[in-house]
């Protein structure tokens, strides 16, 4: 009998020993002559169970985890190849509550298929979106994307359809599509999971975009911190080229499109789209003034669609099933599904794809199971390093763009980082300023100088030097950064800082009354 074992090779699983597990499975299987086949997949996103392996049974796939290489012998002894019981037995994978209650549209295949098997991608519905797009004109494709209500998943939440329309209507012989795979926000890993778990999805989404606006060349700007993603992407690109999904004549359409991966070099600011374009041009990652927007004048001065990886990855299903289908998910002006990345001090961290509108409480308690430390949740940072810190009392906030904005917060790329009650929020505020100072591109003074001053001011507050005056100074400085910065690095760093100050004044050595008293001079 030939059994199939699925072992993830996602970075997260690898960081917990998945490679050793795969090796042990192989050698045990060979020794027993069990005729096992090992398929490497992405991660299902249930990271507290990683490395999580699965086996095919007549009842479907069954999971075991977290597996250590030393558990492999006992798994064979227990008959795991037939889905039998074991200490690490988790039951049918699809029935695990964390997964079952999700609405996986973008992540439908991640963790299930071999990321580098194009035939599996096709067998699981891949490239149907492109096939439909090939029958449509650019304006029709834009129409579907507009109808879907898809907004950019990189942070700014700009409607994708409008961006594409602008690039479509811009006249030029050469146009580009660029994928923002810089994924710089701490607490986020969804882009990485797609690259390592379903790279053809990204390739398909970018090909549809290219077809739509008439671009013949695309770039994936990948952060250098993701070597595994890099390897998987390169392999997938090669396979797509070999089978005519990329190249001079995409699927016989007569239209050329090819893709190249370019590596970043450890600069957070290069996630900002215009800094990224500068970087792709071989320059320092300095933010550009706008207008013109990249859709009109982008890479090498040509019309360019820059989208986050998840934005592109959402497009194939929109084209396959129609904009209306996608739009049925979500709430208000936040349509479709949201890839939440739950991390930090939480019992069950992972990837949760749900329609917009789920609350932080549901995510943190029902999915996450509360803190990993078992202590009280004290603060939650939503939306990466430029996102606000919310106190426990605001965890009833629904996760959609507008609801968060109403609370002075933002969704960003969908990262949710939980802190327990041992956190020192003044230290987190200081870190936010320090990070801004470290990563500032230096183009504008409020950000370049302000962040350095901000760190110093917080240090003075912490050493109890003229607290009230210095808190007033900090607030004033934040105002200057907010209004005087060219981009969101300088403009939004005040968000984590001021929210920490507002909700946790005691960590700055202030009572709420004294915080009130510290008005900007």
């Amino acid at each position, binding site marked *: 009998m030939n059994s199939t074992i699925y072992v993830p090779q996602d970075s997260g699983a*690898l*960081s*917990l020993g998945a490679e050793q597990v795969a090796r042990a499975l192989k050698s045990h299987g060979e020794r027993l002559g069990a005729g096992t086949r090992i398929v490497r997949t992405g991660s299902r996103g249930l990271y507290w169970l990683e490395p999580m392996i699965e086996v095919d049974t007549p009842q479907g796939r069954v999971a075991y985890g977290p597996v250590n290489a030393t558990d492999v012998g006992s798994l064979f002894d227990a008959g795991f190849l037939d889905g039998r019981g074991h200490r690490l037995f988790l039951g049918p994978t699809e029935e695990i509550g964390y997964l079952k209650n999700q609405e996986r549209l973008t992540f439908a295949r991640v963790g299930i298929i071999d990321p580098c098997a194009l035939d599996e991608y096709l067998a699981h519905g891949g490239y149907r979106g492109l096939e439909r797009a090939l029958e449509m004109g650019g304006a029709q494709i834009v129409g579907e994307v507009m109808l879907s209500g898809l907004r950019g998943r990189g942070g700014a939440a700009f409607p994708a359809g409008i961006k594409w329309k602008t690039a479509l209507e811009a006249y030029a012989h050469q146009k580009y599509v660029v994928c923002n795979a810089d994924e710089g926000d701490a607490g986020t890993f969804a882009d990485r999971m797609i690259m390592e778990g379903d790279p053809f999805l990204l390739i398909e989404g970018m090909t549809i975009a290219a077809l739509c606006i008439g671009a013949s060349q695309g770039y994936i700007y990948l952060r250098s911190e993701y070597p595994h993603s890099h390897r998987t992407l390169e392999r997938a690109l090669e396979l797509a080229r070999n089978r005519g999904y990329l190249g001079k004549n995409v699927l016989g359409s007569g239209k050329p499109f090819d893709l190249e991966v370019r*590596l970043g*070099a450890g600069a957070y600011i290069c996630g900002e789209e215009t800094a990224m374009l500068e970087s792709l041009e071989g320059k*320092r990652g300095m933010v550009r003034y706008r207008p013109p927007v990249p859709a009109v004048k982008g890479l090498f001065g040509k019309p360019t669609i820059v989208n986050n990886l998840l934005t592109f990855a959402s497009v194939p299903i929109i084209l396959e099933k129609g904009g209306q289908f996608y739009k049925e998910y979500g709430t208000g002006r936040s349509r479709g599904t949201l890839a939440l990345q739950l991390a930090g001090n939480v019992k069950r961290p992972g990837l949760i794809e749900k329609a917009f509108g789920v609350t932080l409480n549901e995510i943190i308690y029902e999915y996450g199971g509360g803190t990993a430390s078992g202590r009280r949740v004290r603060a939650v940072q939503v939306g990466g*390093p430029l996102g606000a810190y919310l106190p426990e009392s605001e965890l009833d906030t629904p996760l959609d763009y507008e609801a968060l904005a109403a609370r002075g917060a933002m969704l960003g790329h969908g990262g949710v980082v939980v802190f327990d009650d041992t956190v020192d929020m003044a230290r987190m505020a200081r870190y936010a300023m320090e*990070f801004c100072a*470290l990563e500032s591109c230096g183009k504008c003074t409020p950000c370049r100088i302000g962040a350095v001053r901000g760190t110093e001011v917080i240090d003075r507050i912490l050493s109890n030097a003229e607290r009230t005056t210095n808190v007033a100074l900090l607030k004033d400085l934040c105002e200057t950064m907010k209004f005087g910065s060219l981009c969101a690095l300088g403009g939004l760093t005040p968000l984590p800082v001021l929210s920490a100050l507002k909700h946790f004044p005691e960590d700055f050595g202030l009572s709420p009354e004294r915080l009130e008293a510290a008005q900007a001079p």
Partner: protein
Amino acid sequence: MRNSPDGHEEAVRSIASSLRYKPGALLPILHKVQERFGYVPARSLAVIADVLNLSRAEVYGVVSFYHDFRSEPPGEHVIRVCRAESCQAMGAVELVAHIKRKLKLDFGQTSANQRFTLEPVYCLGNCACSPAITIDQEIYGRVTPRRFDDLLAELEGRGG
């Protein structure tokens, strides 16, 4: 430009020449140079500038902008520790302190015997397995001070 006795210049020139036709070739060239030497030697800047028809200052400006490019050779093993928020929530501050103590290094330093280089990193995308570090090409998650010591011992044990 004169030939360098150690072949450094030739190597850089050949890397730069093979990539110069790419649009925006500078970053790919710098990555290749660092991959080859472990850092971007100061003397390679003039060679790259020459091949790309840029000024040395322009090349220097780019190299110095990006955190990844080192100006000094790293140790045999490069250890990078995530300092970002999710890892902080799971004890990265303590882990960093432990690692610095253990290696007797601060961030950005290389041990005198050229054994280790310690660098900070701001998220490895492994936040669901915080705290995270990398040792050379390998990534590790849920790293406690104890697990770090084990990993280090393993490294020393391999003598590699």
